[in-house]
């Protein structure tokens, strides 16, 4: 039994990099879905049961913060765990993320260890939410 992870980044190369790094970390993933920006991610969420969203901050159409607001405003999607993976070092953005309900933040470049440390607690959280 693995988790379904939605990778949201306007760089296809970065989506591939994160996917490969998660695989190297040996995390239990049953399916990877991909989207190039927040609006595409919301489309994917209409058709798939996603456990965890890993999103970039800066994206065209809809950025990571707007995506988090849209997801968490929908009670049906509220159990989905959301984390941001970005090169952005700005603290004002980090505060915005917390206010938007984002559960984790990782600065690029990420290693298998740092991704594992980000993803495992979120998956445990998701599991606990599903059991409740």
């Amino acid at each position: 039994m693995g988790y379904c992870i939605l990778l949201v980044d306007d760089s296809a190369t970065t989506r591939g990099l994160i996917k490969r790094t998660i695989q190297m970390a040996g995390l239990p993933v049953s399916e990877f879905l991909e989207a190039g920006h927040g609006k595409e991610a919301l489309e994917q969420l209409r058709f798939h049961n996603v456990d965890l969203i890993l999103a970039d901050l800066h994206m065209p159409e809809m950025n990571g913060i707007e995506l988090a607001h849209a997801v968490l405003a929908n009670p049906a999607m509220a159990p989905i765990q959301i984390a941001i993976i970005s090169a952005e070092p700005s603290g004002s953005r980090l505060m915005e993320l917390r206010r938007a309900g984002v559960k984790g933040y990782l600065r690029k470049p990420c290693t298998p260890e740092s991704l594992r440390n980000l993803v495992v607690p979120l998956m445990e959280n998701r599991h606990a939410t599903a059991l409740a």
Partner: protein
Amino acid sequence: MRPPSPELLLEALAETLQTMAFICPEPPVGDIAPPPAAECLSIRWSGPGAGKLQLATTRTFGELLAANILALEPGTPEIAARSLDALQELCNITTGSLLARLCDSPDDAPQVGLPAASVLPDAAAWQHFVSQSGTIVLEAEGYPLAVRYEETAQ
């Protein structure tokens, strides 16, 4: 926020290349022949400090980068299509990594813009790029890689 330095820029670039693609940039042995054409990526930041990072290299190095990142076999058609995307991400992550080294806390950090790409169309344009003050020229897996930062007015 502290001002950037060539040492910190090198650290940020090396960490990014090694983590993303298992590539270790090194100082060139002897003179590097200017490539006939190159990609130039730049990204600006503003806030507590303002500036710009620029990175120039060949599209072929971008292909190597994409192949390493995505673990693709040489000759896979997807590699050429991902070259520029991989270089833009290298520029983006290197900038974030450099700025993180300059700030004592995230509250101190500037906001980073989106990467922009242009072309250095010939060897003369490459020579002009690397002749600018503060430019660091490296070799990565046999490919030329030049990087520089510039502090700008707010």
